[in-house]
């Protein structure tokens, strides 16, 4: 049977991806260029009893989805730059309290109000380090309308599986452009729901590591009474300042994402003509499309250039980048900021090859010509 197809904006695809994943709660606040996500969900959620609430501010929106998630809901918020800045406090709360939720960050120019309708990729480090304190981050960076759909689904899956906030970060260009999308049928994509407790309420502890690094989370209102706090806590969920408890819990919360096995599960990237590449482009989001265009043009001239496109931005695909760093003469990192992910590439290749940044922050995309010129200079 032919699949349902439509021409959709990236933001609209995000909303539909969320619904496919089982999202039944959205708390948000209007902000350009992410508002279409809220608009679509305000229309769709109540059709099946889902909840949409426009909160009084960005912090309230973030608070509402954490509250909703604790009742068992699959909860989403969407925002951009300044709004994501405001949400940071409670993104940290969701990290330490280990509450699954998904945050869409549609990147515009910045800092501050910046260029609300212009594209940017300058919030990728914010995704990693925006909230204070040590914490692990999962952030996904789709590059097309179809991929926004599938990565939003994956964001929910990872949030539920690893019991934490997951961010989907994409620039205004992919958020606002329209492309053909094929809607997956139910069952085409895997849907993961959080593990439920296997012990009775009398034995239940919300951070019980005897069930592994991701302890099952009970929903409020199902007979399990427990405590949730933003304070450092012990396995029973109650605040503690006991050194060994605090240390163990903090390390576990990072390990659950950055441990070997988890990394293999979470990391996702695409390589294009990297096998014989002597020059590597590292690009994500809309910029990766310019980079791919550039690769095709340059290959016509016989220049051996390849593209590495991280789809999972955080945790960073360290191993593969380190290996590629040893293979190529140089890595070029075009991004719509003045140098962010290039620093991570640099950190990982440890001087094995030069890492060259192409930055742009004037509200225009990085076009293939810019990348082609840089490759030719390096060659």
């Amino acid at each position, binding site marked *: 049977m032919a699949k349902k197809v439509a*021409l959709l904006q990236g933001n609209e695809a995000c909303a539909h991806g969320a619904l496919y994943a089982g999202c039944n709660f959205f708390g948000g606040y209007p902000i350009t260029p992410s508002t279409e996500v809220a608009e679509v969900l305000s229309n769709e959620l109540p059709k099946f009893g889902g909840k949409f609430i426009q909160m009084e501010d960005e912090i309230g929106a973030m608070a509402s989805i954490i509250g909703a998630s604790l009742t068992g809901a699959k909860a989403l918020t969407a925002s951009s730059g300044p709004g994501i800045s405001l949400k940071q406090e409670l993104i940290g709360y969701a990290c330490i309290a280990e509450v699954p939720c998904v945050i869409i960050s549609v990147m515009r120019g910045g800092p501050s109000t910046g260029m609300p309708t212009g594209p940017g990729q300058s919030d990728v480090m914010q995704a990693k380090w925006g909230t204070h304190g040590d914490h692990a981050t999962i952030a996904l960076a789709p590059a097309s309308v179809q991929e926004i759909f599938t990565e939003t689904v994956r964001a929910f899956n990872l949030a539920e599986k690893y019991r934490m906030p997951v961010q989907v970060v994409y620039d205004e260009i992919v958020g606002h452009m329209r492309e053909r999308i094929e809607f997956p049928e139910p069952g085409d994509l895997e849907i993961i729901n959080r593990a439920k407790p296997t012990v009775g309420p009398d034995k239940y502890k919300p951070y019980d590591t005897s069930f592994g690094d991701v302890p099952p989370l009970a929903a409020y209102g199902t007979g399990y009474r427990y405590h949730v706090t933003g304070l450092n806590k012990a396995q029973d969920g109650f605040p503690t300042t006991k050194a060994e408890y605090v240390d163990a819990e903090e390390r576990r919360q990072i390990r659950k994402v950055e441990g070997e096995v988890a990394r293999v599960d979470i990391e996702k990237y695409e390589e294009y003509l990297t096998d014989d590449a002597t020059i590597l482009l590292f690009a994500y989001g809309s910029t990766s*499309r310019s980079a791919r265009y550039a690769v095709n043009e340059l290959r016509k001239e016989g220049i051996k250039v390849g593209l590495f496109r991280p789809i999972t931005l955080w945790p960073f695909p360290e191993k593969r980048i380190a290996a590629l760093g040893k293979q190529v003469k140089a890595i070029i990192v075009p991004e719509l900021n003045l140098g962010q992910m290039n620093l991570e590439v640099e950190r990982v290749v440890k001087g094995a090859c030069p890492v060259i940044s192409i930055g742009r922050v004037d509200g225009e995309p990085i076009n293939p010509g810019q990348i082609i010129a840089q490759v030719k200079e390096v060659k």
Partner: protein
Amino acid sequence: MSKRFEIRFSGAGGQGLITAGIILAEAAAIIEGKHAVQSQSYGPEARGGASKSEVIISDSPIDYPKATVVDACLAMTQESADKYANGIKKGGVLLIDSDFVKNEPKGDFKVYKMPIMRTAKDEIGREIVANVVALGAMIALTDAVSREAGEKAVLARVPEAFLDLNKKAYNLGFEKVKALLK
């Protein structure tokens, strides 16, 4: 048609040119099964002032999603002609609303003229369908999609009560340009 074809619709905010771009992209991507990307101007400039909507159509997946040098451009107003008719490819085409664009942009492209707003007002009776007249005209001018696909996409977008009106507008725009091309 070349591998990658770029069309820009420009005019004043509120003239429905973003919708025209979306319909063209739907005709290409949904009805004809090609690859298409549509993008548009946002923010204050999309409300009044000069506004634009761009469509890229290709037989293969589209990497760079923004226009590079457009193959064809529509300009409904002088301001949009001044602002957006600059990046037209050598040998490309520009369609202007001749009642509003008095200073014709100069370049290595062919300019076609048609009183688009007036056609919508006088011959259809509704200025609001000027964007659909323009869409028909641009499809006739470029063969970006087939006439039938364009019409089907128009009709899929409009409420039932306005089907005839829009069908008329689309075909009028199409035929007027075909007559110019003869």
